[in-house]
């Protein structure tokens, strides 16, 4: 996994990897992962681990521990699907997160729902005040893309900017 990440990373980009609640709870797997990251010289700084809000919710203590250990190795942590869990603000405060990924269902409403636009804008400004970067997930059309720029979102992800391609 780490080697695969390194190969992808050779183009100078960072690599983001999802952690599910099952992988966070699987102690052996996490130990292996943390060791692998520690062994791969220079790889840690280019790795981002994404923890979904629901995974964090299922095991907040485990999520925090994993995030802190990976953070100490130099990896960045992203909070994925932000806004879909309960107590989203608590997660933002309690997890050592550098990147907030706003869930696609809020992004989808930016064009037609003033409430969704206000929420996305609010999350973007809150994240900035906390020194975090924001990603809009599920960006699928130009109009949404333009509105997200106005909301001061940092980064975009979705079919409009790049489809998933098989490795």
């Amino acid at each position, binding site marked *: *996994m*780490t*080697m*695969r*990440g390194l190969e*992808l990373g050779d183009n100078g*980009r*960072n*690599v*983001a*990897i*999802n*952690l*599910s*609640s*099952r*992988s966070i*709870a*699987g102690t052996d*797997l996490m130990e*292996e*992962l943390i*060791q*692998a990251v520690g*062994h*791969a010289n220079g790889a840690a700084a280019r790795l*981002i681990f*994404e923890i979904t809000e629901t995974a964090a919710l299922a095991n907040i203590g485990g999520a925090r521990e994993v995030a802190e250990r990976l953070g100490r190795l130099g990896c960045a942590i992203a909070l994925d699907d932000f806004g879909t869990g309960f107590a989203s603000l608590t997660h933002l405060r309690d997890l050592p997160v550098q990147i907030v990924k706003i869930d696609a269902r809020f992004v989808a409403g930016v064009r037609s729902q003033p409430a969704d636009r206000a929420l996305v804008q609010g999350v973007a400004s809150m994240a900035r005040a906390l020194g975090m970067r924001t*990603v809009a997930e599920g960006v699928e059309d130009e109009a949404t*893309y333009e509105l997200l*720029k106005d909301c001061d*979102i*940092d*980064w*975009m*992800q979705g079919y409009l*900017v*790049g*489809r*998933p*391609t*098989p*490795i």
Partner: protein
Amino acid sequence: LVGFENRFRTKDGEYRWLSWHAYSDGDMWLAAAADVTERKLVTDDFEQAIAEERLLAYRQPIVDWRAGEVVHEELLARLRGRQNGHVLSTAG
């Protein structure tokens, strides 16, 4: 600076992988090795799963619109026949 990995058999018949880094100042070579067996096993499992198509892996870019460039590649993976999953959840 050159780097390579190779496999050694130990006295008790086990294989260990060593990662070598060697450096030359023109006259002399200096070399150091680290045992990377555990990392190698994790990597090989993952790559084998992809090769056998038990694991379907994708990547998707994350774009910085101000700079107009891809800043990250997200890795996504799912087990064949399953709705959704991610790289590490499938290994768990």
